[in-house]
């Protein structure tokens, strides 16, 4: 699929490569094409099960084997899921047609792939990344998957193999190809895009989005340009990216390779390259003797697809709240920015519902998010009563529990389901009475006169270190029950009084 190369420059932080040779600053430009298998019961054009991992060539019939005389019949659920995904990506759903993409390959039973070409079902949407970047979506169209070749004997690769086997179980499995615009500017952002897209695929039920099983496949179009250059550079399409780690590494490698070439005055050749995870580099694909010409034309065995306005409206009405929206809702409730890590993590872990409920129960937003981000493992947090989390935060803010104690109490809350007050009592985390704390501090000062005088006379630099010495002593004596903030306040008041 060709990318639309006109785009608006995006705002925000730019990840750049600064050349060691010339000092020029280069920018990476990435557009991702994602193929994902739709989680339908049956295949795109026949009634065979859409199942991963079954015995080879067991989920096949005349239609998905492309036997002479067989005809495709469009699976209604494919259209439903494709539209659901499209609407979740803010695309408009358009009347669409299927086309044949003609080329010979043994894993493709008809030697053409039924896809959508000039009139795709979903066009012109976007996806908001957790870092605030909006990545344009050019299109998300329906197409059929191919079978799988296995090269046996010899090297196990196509060259030198003794023979090849083909499994057509995957042939005709429905795919949506999501073509993103080149709005991504660094490898981490590319990974973030895939994470976000995966979250949307899961939320909409469109796909199980497993990169390791190949139900989500990523190709990256990578180019570079000097910062400030409005023109996009020549791009290379990187394939064989089997994990997020590979995606990040491949983009980074490919960008540096291109910068090196350009600085040597060598033009980039637009080509397909394969990522070699072991060698940590991209390699050119086998050069094709002839230019690719897929001779697209409208698939005469299928009729145009025109989902009714009612159908689209029903899809919209049934869409779940999507990650970006969930981040916005949580951020507003917590009174923080939507790109803050606490918000992003809460949504990513599916704990935003808990956080929102805790905030609703009076828990202070930022502290609630801190717990969700740092102190709650994904497992087991689900049964946590949000009211208890709100209470915990309340105890903390009232100085009745220290941050350390709160963490311990929270862990106990998750495992026992009891209230924080009860757990604190059980663990002996009674807040120290302030006169008791003052007496303890005075005793410690008396025990360490040298340190105290150093602290009293300390300059800005040494002050923090010596303060830490006294706080540490108090914590040790109080067995962690003293509130750190209260301790420093008392220490400072004593210091001011004695100086």
């Amino acid at each position, binding site marked *: 699929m060709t990318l639309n190369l006109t785009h608006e420059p995006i705002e925000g932080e730019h990840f750049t490569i600064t050349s060691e040779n010339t000092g020029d600053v280069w920018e990476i430009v990435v557009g991702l094409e994602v193929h994902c298998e739709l989680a339908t019961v049956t295949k795109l054009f026949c009634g065979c099960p859409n199942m991963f991992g079954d015995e080879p060539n067991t989920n096949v019939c*005349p239609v998905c*084997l*492309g*036997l*002479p*005389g*067989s*005809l*495709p*019949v*469009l699976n209604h659920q494919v259209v439903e899921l494709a539209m659901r995904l499209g609407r979740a990506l803010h695309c408009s759903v358009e009347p669409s047609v299927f086309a*044949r993409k*003609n080329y*010979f390959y*043994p894993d493709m*039973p*008809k*030697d*053409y792939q039924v896809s959508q070409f000039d009139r795709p079902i979903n066009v012109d949407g976007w996806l908001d990344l957790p870092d605030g970047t909006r990545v344009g979506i050019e299109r998300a169209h329906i197409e059929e998957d191919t079978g799988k070749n296995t090269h046996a004997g010899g090297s196990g690769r196509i060259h030198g193999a003794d023979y*090849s086997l*083909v499994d057509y179980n995957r042939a005709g499995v429905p795919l949506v190809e999501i073509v993103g615009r080149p709005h991504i500017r660094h490898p981490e952002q590319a990974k973030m895009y895939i994470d976000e897209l995966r979250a949307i695929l899961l939320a909409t039920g469109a796909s199980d989005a497993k990169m390791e099983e190949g139900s989500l496949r990523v190709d990256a179009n990578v180019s570079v340009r000097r910062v400030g250059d409005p023109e996009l550079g020549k791009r290379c399409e990187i394939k064989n990216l089997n994990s997020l780690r590979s995606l990040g590494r491949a983009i980074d490698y490919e960008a540096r390779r291109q910068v090196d070439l350009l600085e040597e005055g060598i033009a980039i050749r637009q080509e397909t390259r394969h990522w070699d995870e072991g060698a940590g580099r991209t390699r050119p694909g086998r050069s094709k003797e002839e*230019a690719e*010409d897929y*001779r*697209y*034309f409208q698939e*005469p*065995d*299928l*009729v145009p697809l025109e989902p009714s306005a009612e159908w689209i409206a029903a899809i919209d009405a049934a869409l779940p709240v999507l990650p970006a929206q969930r981040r916005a809702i949580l951020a507003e409730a917590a009174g923080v920015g939507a790109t803050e890590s606490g918000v992003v993590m809460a949504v990513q872990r599916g704990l935003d519902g808990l956080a929102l409920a805790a905030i609703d129960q009076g828990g202070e937003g930022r502290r609630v998010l801190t717990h969700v981000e740092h102190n709650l493992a994904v497992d087991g947090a689900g049964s946590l009563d949000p009211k208890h989390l709100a209470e915990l935060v309340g105890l903390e803010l009232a100085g009745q529990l220290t941050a350390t104690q709160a963490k311990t109490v929270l862990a106990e809350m998750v495992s026992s389901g009891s209230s924080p007050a009860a757990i604190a009592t059980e663990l002996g985390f009674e807040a120290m009475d302030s006169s008791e704390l003052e007496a303890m501090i005075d005793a410690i000062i008396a025990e360490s006169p040298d340190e105290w005088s150093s602290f009293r006379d300390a300059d800005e630099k040494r002050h923090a270190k010596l303060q830490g010495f006294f706080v540490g002593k108090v914590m040790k004596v109080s067995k962690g029950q003293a509130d750190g903030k209260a301790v420093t306040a008392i220490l400072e008041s004593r210091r001011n009084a004695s100086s």
Partner: protein
Amino acid sequence: MASIPTTAIEIAAAVRSGELSAREVLESHLDAIEAREPEINAFNLVLADEARAAATAIDERVAAGEDPGVLAGVPLALKDNLCTHGIPTTCSSRILEGWRPPYDATVVQRVAAAGAIAIGKTNLDEFAMGSSTENSAFGPTRNPRDLSRVPGGSSGGSAAAVAAGFAPISLGSDTGGSIRQPAALCGVVGVKPTYGMVSRYGLVAFASSLDQIGPFSTTVADSALLLEAIAGHDPRDSTSINAAAPSLLDVLDQGVAGLRIGLVTELMGEGIAPDVAARVRQAAEALAAAGAEIGEVSIPALSYGLSAYYLIAPAEASSNLARYDGVRYGMRVDAATTAEMNTKTRTAGFGDEVKRRIMLGTYALSAGYYDAYYGKALKVRTLIMRDFETAYKDFDLLLTPTSPTTAFRFGEKTSDPLSMYLNDICTIPTNLAGHPAMSVPFGAGSDGMPVGVQLMAPALAEPTMFRAAAVLEDAAPPLEEAFQ
């Protein structure tokens, strides 16, 4: 033993009433095949054993008091591009050697469900590409009325089988005239229904947007009967019209009084043999005598029909025939690499005409040529539809020759593909428009060979078309009567 009737309607009636057994009907047809098939070569495969088993089963059902259906015990020949479960389906091509489909075409299921007996798979131009059956990998079929002449094509075997009395009815496929032209050349009735009226599921595709299955018979009523049996929505074909089969037998005697029937100017002049044109005028007079209003109509876009067809049909064929690559079924010529194996297999497996059309179609769809060829052909197709629409504002039906000439001799046109393609000039436009049309025998030409006249109708107007066909059938001069 009662004598065996020649029409499907009579045979079915006799079998259903127990007057005749399906088995004796079958044996009489197998005898006819045994007598003349060696000289005609209508069949790629005669299914004698399977047919006997099926006929016996029909007789058992009749004996048990069941009604096996409207085609009970009627022998029926199937063009060998219709998939038959477990029975070789070759498309008269070497490339499908050894392939036995694991399923029946929808039409094959439907005729069987109606009680018909599949008697054999008939010869055709390879993958239905041709107008004479000379492109078959298994040798040509001969015209039963004159063995030195072609039966037409591509459904030459199905037309010849009916003309020779091997079966009262048969099924063919029509992409640009492949039912109507051989029907005309063999002197039988042949119908191309509205696109989508008959399921294409199990018809090995030539050009998917044009292909349509239809009947051959000796009488108009038999074609009506067979079309009623095979028509109707099929969920396995997305282009199938979501409607029940039309009622045709019921309207056959309604006549043509008040119908407006147009003679198409573009298909009555240059390129049409004078004797054929004269027969068409005579047919028009017969319709007028029966009460129809006859007029002349010009459909200018028809002049471009042939050119558009020979871009669109090969373009689709180039894609439809890509799957014959030696990987999964049929012929394989082994080689060191997959690509080489593909090439060697296709080189050995396809005949010249198929290769010619694959190349034409591949070219027409190629980057840089698409707009000038395939794209323009699609526009012409739209123009033709529009012109037909205009014509059908003033006329209920159109009347033309089916073929520009009567049956020609073997080898006469094989050296010049263009002259062969011109044979389809009268039949192609309705395929491009998706409309129904049929050929009805109407006397002989100056050479004594049958002439067919073509009735064309708007989409789904088969009932009107069949009414006129019945009138023409009644008025047709006997074949034996010399052309004046």
